[in-house]
Structure formats: structure tokens, C-alpha cells
């Protein structure tokens, strides 16, 4: 077996462990699925009249608009949960088991990110299923759904990289967990739950430059209207930027951890 195939097998095994770990620990799966589902239910139940506001983009239903936001929330919290799980591994010494194995040490980070990406994939399927069951239409059809799945999966991996970097640098689950409110603040300062056009300053300007807005619009566009190449490109660039940042910070944090022990 080639080195690449062996490493891919290691990443897959660690990714599968990461997914199992999430599903077996309620405090990790709850923020990814249950919390965003409840918020989606509350928002669509209580604020569906928002679609009548002047300036609200034309949508088939408020649920159709909100699906992208729920996916975004879920993937952000998947990244945070991935960071918490990695920090728990560090605290209990499980990473020593991984570090003492003859594998490239960055495979440990990639395994964790593979698991986070898999959770992003699961979240996208979950919310698409909820949307379809409750009558939301995907304007771009199957292609739009596939684009949403791809962007949510890739964005989960990207955000997971930042979570992994913080976990590796601090080695503390409580520190990573402490970022949970910050994740929500950043999310609410994007167009995840409300159209940018209807926001007031300074939230409007922040949302305009918030990379999460680019990602969420890339997911939402094909759902509520149709494909827009520039919107998709912006989303991909935002994800790529976060991926590069996350991997760079993770690599530095990993080297630091190995140096100081």
C-alpha cells in the first residue's frame, strides 16, 4: 500500500472515530443538530411574517430563506464541537496515543477535520430533509441541493480547522467551549438569519464583509432563486480563505504543542 493510501486510511479512521464520538456524546451532537433545529422551528413559527417586509428578497417561504442560516449555524457549531472534542483528547492524553504512532502528525488534524466535514454533510442533509418535509422548495432543483451540500460540507471543514487550531494551542476544552457565544455573535452579524438589506448599522456593514455572509449567500442563492456564478465564487473564496487560515494556524499550534510537550 502506498504511503498516500496508508495516510488516507488513517485520516478516514480518525474521521470515523470523530463522527462516532460526536454521536455518542450528547453535548457534542446537541449543538449541531438539536439546537439549530429548535431555533429554525422557533424562527419560522414566530417570524415568518418577515417575508412581507419591504426589501426582503423574494422567497417561496420564510423556511426556504432560513434553511441556509440553520445549516450555517450547524456547521459553525460542528467546527466548535470538533475543537472541543480535540481538546478533550488532549486533556485525557488520547492525542499522545496518536502522536506516538508512525503517521504524519498533521493526519491527526486532518482526521478531525474529515469528521467535522462528515458532520457538515449530515447537517446539510438533515436540514434539506426538514425543508422538503415542511414544504420548502429548492429553486435550482437537485443541482441547488447538491451545491448546498457541498458548500456546507466544505465550510464545516474550514471552520473545523479554526476550532482545531484553538484546541491545539490551548489544549483546554473549556476554552474552546467558551467560544460558543462568540460563534453565535459572529453568526448573527452575518446574513445567516436576516437579509443584509434590512439590517441597521453597524451590523449591516459588518455583515457585508463577514465571510460567513458570503458562504451563507452561496448556499441560499440556489435555494431561493437560482445559480449566480459570482455568488458561488464568493462563497468558495470565503471557504478557501478560512481553510487556509485554519490549516495554517493548526499547523503552527501543532508544532508548538510538539515542541513544548
Amino acid at each position, binding site marked *: *500500500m502506498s504511503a498516500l493510501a*496508508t495516510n488516507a*486510511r*488513517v485520516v478516514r*479512521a*480518525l474521521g470515523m*472515530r470523530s463522527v*462516532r*464520538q460526536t454521536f*455518542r*456524546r450528547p453535548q457534542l451532537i446537541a449543538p449541531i443538530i438539536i439546537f439549530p433545529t429548535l431555533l429554525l422551528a422557533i424562527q419560522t413559527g414566530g417570524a415568518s411574517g418577515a417575508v412581507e417586509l419591504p426589501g426582503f428578497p423574494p422567497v417561496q417561504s420564510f423556511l426556504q430563506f432560513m434553511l441556509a442560516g440553520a445549516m450555517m449555524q450547524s456547521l459553525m457549531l460542528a467546527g466548535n464541537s470538533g475543537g472541543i472534542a480535540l481538546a478533550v*483528547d488532549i486533556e*485525557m*492524553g*488520547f492525542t*499522545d*496515543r*496518536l*502522536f*506516538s*504512532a*508512525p*503517521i504524519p502528525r498533521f493526519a491527526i488534524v486532518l482526521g478531525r477535520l474529515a469528521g467535522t466535514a462528515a458532520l457538515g454533510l449530515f447537517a446539510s442533509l438533515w436540514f434539506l430533509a426538514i425543508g422538503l418535509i415542511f414544504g420548502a422548495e429548492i429553486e435550482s432543483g437537485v443541482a441547488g441541493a447538491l451545491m448546498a451540500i457541498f458548500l456546507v460540507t466544505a465550510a464545516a471543514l474550514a471552520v473545523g480547522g479554526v476550532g482545531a487550531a484553538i484546541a491545539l494551542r490551548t489544549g483546554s476544552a473549556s476554552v474552546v467551549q467558551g467560544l460558543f457565544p462568540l460563534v453565535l455573535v459572529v453568526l448573527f452579524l452575518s446574513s445567516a438569519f436576516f437579509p443584509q438589506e434590512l439590517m441597521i448599522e453597524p451590523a449591516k456593514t459588518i455583515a457585508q464583509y463577514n465571510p460567513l455572509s458570503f458562504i451563507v449567500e452561496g448556499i441560499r442563492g440556489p435555494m431561493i432563486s437560482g445559480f449566480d456564478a459570482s455568488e458561488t465564487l464568493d462563497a468558495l473564496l470565503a471557504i478557501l480563505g478560512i481553510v487556509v487560515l485554519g490549516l495554517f494556524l493548526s499547523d503552527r499550534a501543532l508544532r508548538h504543542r*510538539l*515542541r*513544548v*510537550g
Partner: protein
Amino acid sequence: MPAIVVEGLERAFDKVLAVQGIDISVEEGEIFGFLGPNGAGKTTTVRMLTTLLLPTGGRASVAGHDVVKEARAVRSSIGVALQEAALDPLMTGRELIRLQATLQGIPTAEGRRRADSLLERVDLSAAADRRVGGYSGGMKRRLDLAAALVHEPRVLFLDEPTTGLDPVSRKTIWEEVRELNEGGTTVFLTTQYLEEADQLADNVGIIDSGKIVAEGTPESLKAEFGNPHIQLQLAQGSVAEAESILAPIGKLLPPKDGSKVLVEVENGAADIPRVVRALDEAGIAVEALELVKPTLDDVFVEKTGYHLEEESEENAEKAPVEA
């Protein structure tokens, strides 16, 4: 060829020197017992030898590979069971060993076969599909050991493998370690239990404040400390006379109380009849007699000033030395 060679190995944490230029040599197929009080530098040394921590000075090789320059080759040759068994409580025992097999590059089918065989070997087959979080301390240690063996390593590092275990679980681990060693595996064993080192180790190194303060076979270290002595409990008033009779037989040691005589003898148990006969001929009645052999604890106290097991029970921390 030695399985482990350590030359002038150092590790500093900021201004604190945790390990101060130690030298160790462990032959292939040997069990090396590494003893020391808490904070002496045992775990730091093991972490450097297992490539989990970079040394800040000196060099070390394991299984013929440099721990810094050929770290990955070292990791392929070693099995590691670290202090406080690093197990994921949410995984099952079988999942953990299969994951370990994947990490070691063992093909899936072979990994499954080895996992089944190792679980049986450490008597965990029945619990293999239960989550590790529900295992007892002894089961966790046995699982940790099994995971460390999945790739049949040449050198096995066991960092305090029996700490906190009950005597029965401890003996099970000892038997497993002996069996592995008989199969040719070199074992580097850190422990706080002197009896464990005495029972298992071919050679022992004692580390204190980051420095090796004694090294040798348990027997040679004990012999260095002194010969065995016979402790005699005598009737009141006969101690002085007994001492004058026994002085030509062996060196008299300071007594612990007024009714006891301690006499160091060269030949151990073989000298007991001679001692008893001499006292009997003088009409001195012996109420009790005990042959006391030097223990590793005596050696440890001599070299470090601490009673190791008492110290470990108190979980005392010693301050490392400033660089």
C-alpha cells in the same frame, strides 16, 4: 546492540531543567526498571524516548533510530502504554485496538485478526464491544497494553502500568510483561513500586531531580547497599553478652531497641545455624529471629533520601532544579 541508548539527554522547560544530562543503556531483550519519586523526570524521559517531546540537549536512540532525526522509524518500532491509560471512554475495546492497528499501517483484515487475538490474550473478549468508560482500572490497563502490542513492537514503554491497581490486577500485568519479555520484547518500565522493579527488571535505573543516581541489577544495587543481617530478639539483660559472642561472626549494626541485636552476615541464611549455635552454647535464649535482606527501598532511601512508596502514596511533588 543496545535497544535504547541515552547519552547526556536533557530537557528544560523555560528555566527549569527537568532532565539533566542522563545516560542509560538498555540491552535488547532486557526489562529496564526506571524508578524515581514524583517529579524526578521519569515521565519526561519516557516522553522524549517515545518522540512525544523534543530533547533540549544530548541524544537518544531507540531500536537503532535517533529519536529526533528518525522519529517516525522510532515510532514504528515501539509500543507505548502511558501513565493514566490514554483511552477514549466512548470507544469500545475492539474499536480502540482496530484503530491502533490502522495507525500502525496494518491492513484491515489483519488488524481485525490481531485485535481479536489480543483481546483474548488480555482476557477482554467478553467486554470487547463494551465502551471503555465502563471498564475497571485493571481492564483499562490491560486494554492499553494490548493496544501497545498490536504491531508487535521491538521495544515496549510502560509508564507506571500498575499504579492504582489492586494486587491481583497488578500481578496479571506482571505476568503479561514477563511473557512478552520472554518473547524477546525489550521493556522500558517506569514504576513507583519497588517490588515491581525487583520482580520484573533485569536492570534498574534510579532518577532523582533529573539525574541518574544509581544503575545496575537489583541484586547488585542491594549488594552495594550491604549484606543481609540477622535480627535477634533476646531476653532482657542478655544483649551485651550476645553482642560480644556475635562480634567475631559478623559486623554488629546499631540496634533498633534495647532487646534486639542486629548482626550483618556474609552468607545470609547459611549463617543462621552458626549464630544460633553460638548463642545456645553460651546459654542465651533466642525469642525470635529474622533474616533481613537489603531491599530496593533501602537502596532508594540511600540514593535519594526518600521512601519511594510512601512518597508516592503521599503524592508529594518535588521541585525540579533551576537551570
